[in-house]
């Protein structure tokens, strides 16, 4: 039972060979089967994720959450799904029919596709791509396209506004997200996700570069467009954003894609920064590794739910300021410093090198925080006697305060 995945695949291979299927065809069948299994189990996971999130958020807000259907309300999501499927599927008469129908499919593909390269255990992954990290970035753009398509094809002003916000937010935040993903790539010397996990033997990248992990988490949170970044669908501003015209199962597809994407961020955090399936005894028993991976992914997902339940939504100018004036410059400085330190200490022991990397992270984080607090106190000092429309921007870096002073 130590290696469930190899056992099962050997057993299936035996069955196929006995049935007289040539090995090449068996390989094809396996590839299709793996893709099918990953996709379906990913989408089925959503049923559990929605229950988990509702339960956790409810507890944080001193409520009980779903508790009527099934034990602990576990089957509540199934009932909701049934309702969504049975609801009337309405298409606005002015809508662009083809694109309107294609958009939710793209949104789901963009998320499910990510699971193709995520190593679930030492011996279990869809495919070990040598450009895995780039593949993640490429697949993520499909979701953006889906949202753009949905916003335009609905022929609804609120939907279109939501789509425009999408481009501003998702395209901006993919820059710090990519820069943060570059750190594990740099430290491991490979873009393959399995290789990155293998390189975290003994020292997780999240320990050596916690700032990169944090930036990755924030930027990914913005890319999923969840609270506090849910500007694309801010109910109080633009009704429901890009999916305002969607109903029934098509809305359900957007919904499922969003939940699965949030969990996928947890999984990617685990793979890139928390050692993936690594843990005591995981190298000998890959089945155990899958359990570690699931636990780490859920820990990351819990963090996202926690943030969602506690933080208020930020304004769009704050959101863009934070991306371009804080996260991106901080990541560029961090990567430069990490490259130098990692190269200079290439010959030393693992502990010295990782300790130095951690020190660099702490230094950069301290620098960012001191710059931020300086600009904040400046803009507070300058806020007196200014027109209310030109309020202070707490997220701006130092220097912005001076400009605002000169302007007023």
């Amino acid at each position, binding site marked *: 039972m130590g290696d469930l995945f190899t056992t099962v695949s050997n057993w299936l291979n035996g069955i196929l060979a006995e049935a007289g299927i040539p090995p090449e065809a068996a390989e094809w069948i396996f590839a299709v089967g793996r893709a099918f299994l990953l996709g379906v189990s990913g989408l089925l996971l959503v049923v559990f994720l929605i229950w988990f999130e509702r339960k956790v958020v409810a507890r944080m807000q001193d409520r009980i959450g779903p508790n009527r259907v099934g034990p602990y309300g576990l089957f509540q999501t199934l009932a909701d799904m049934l309702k969504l499927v049975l609801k009337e599927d309405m298409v606005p008469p002015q809508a662009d029919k083809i694109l309107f129908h294609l958009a939710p499919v793209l949104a789901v593909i963009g998320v499910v596709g990510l699971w193709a390269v995520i190593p679930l255990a030492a011996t279990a992954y869809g495919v070990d791509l040598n*450009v895995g990290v780039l593949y993640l970035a*490429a697949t993520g*753009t499909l979701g953006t396209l889906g949202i753009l398509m949905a916003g*335009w094809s609905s022929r609804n002003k609120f939907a*279109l506004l939501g789509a425009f916000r999408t481009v501003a937010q998702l395209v901006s935040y993919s820059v710090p997200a990519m820069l943060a993903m570059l750190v594990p790539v740099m430290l491991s010397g490979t873009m393959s996700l399995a290789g990155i996990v293998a390189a975290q033997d003994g020292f997780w990248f999240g320990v050596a570069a916690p700032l990169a992990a944090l930036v990755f988490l924030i930027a990914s949170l913005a890319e999923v467009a969840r609270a506090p970044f849910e500007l694309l669908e801010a109910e109080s501003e633009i009704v429901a954003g890009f999916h305002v015209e969607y109903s029934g199962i098509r809305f359900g597809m957007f919904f499922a894609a969003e939940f699965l994407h949030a969990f996928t961020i947890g999984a990617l955090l685990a793979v890139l920064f928390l050692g993936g399936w690594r843990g005591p005894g995981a190298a000998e028993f890959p089945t155990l590794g899958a359990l570690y991976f699931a636990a780490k992914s859920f820990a990351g997902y819990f963090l996202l739910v926690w943030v969602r339940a506690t933080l208020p939504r930020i304004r769009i100018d704050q959101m863009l300021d934070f991306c371009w004036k804080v996260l991106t410059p901080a990541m560029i400085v961090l990567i430069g410093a990490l490259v130098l330190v990692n190269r200079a200490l290439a010959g030393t022991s693992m502990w010295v090198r990782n300790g130095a990397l951690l020190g660099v992270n702490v230094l950069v984080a301290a620098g960012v925080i001191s710059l931020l607090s300086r600009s904040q106190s400046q803009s507070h000092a300058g806020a007196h006697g200014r027109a209310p429309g030109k309020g202070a921007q707490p997220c701006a870096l130092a220097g912005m305060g001076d400009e605002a002073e000169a302007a007023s």
Partner: protein
Amino acid sequence: MTLEQILFLVFALIGLGLALASVTMRNLVRSAFALIGCLFAVAALFAMLDASLFVVAQVAVYVGAIATLIVLVVMLTRLEQQERIPQTHRYWPAAALLAAVIVAGVAWGLWQYGFFDQTPPALPAADPIVELGRALVDPEKFLIPFEAVSVLLLSALIGAVLVAGGANKKERTE
């Protein structure tokens, strides 16, 4: 023909069809999305040639960045006018002739090169990404072009900041 060859042809035909659609469609947004589909078909062709880096670069750069911008710009245009504007102008036969000559020239060149009956060389055993990375920082190979492109992109970036920042300042002082 093997299954791979058939699939390659299918993807090539899909790409061609979508390329044609993107220049002939009346609806600009649809034609932009057809262009995106065409870029995806090209990525599929790269995938069938085992060029995984090109696949993801094609999708990340063209579909992710460029096509998204195209779609955004197209969405901002007035679509009602598009229905009445003619799609060709009077010099189109000359343009078609020029295009045909170029296609014929490329095809002839490939034919002369003996491209069609050569078997491709086997892929090197080493990780091609690592090879590419080494080549980009090797002074004997691509270091100079790589740095030249970096400088070009950096100047474009600074220029963009300058243009945007300058406009902002003017607005504020007014």
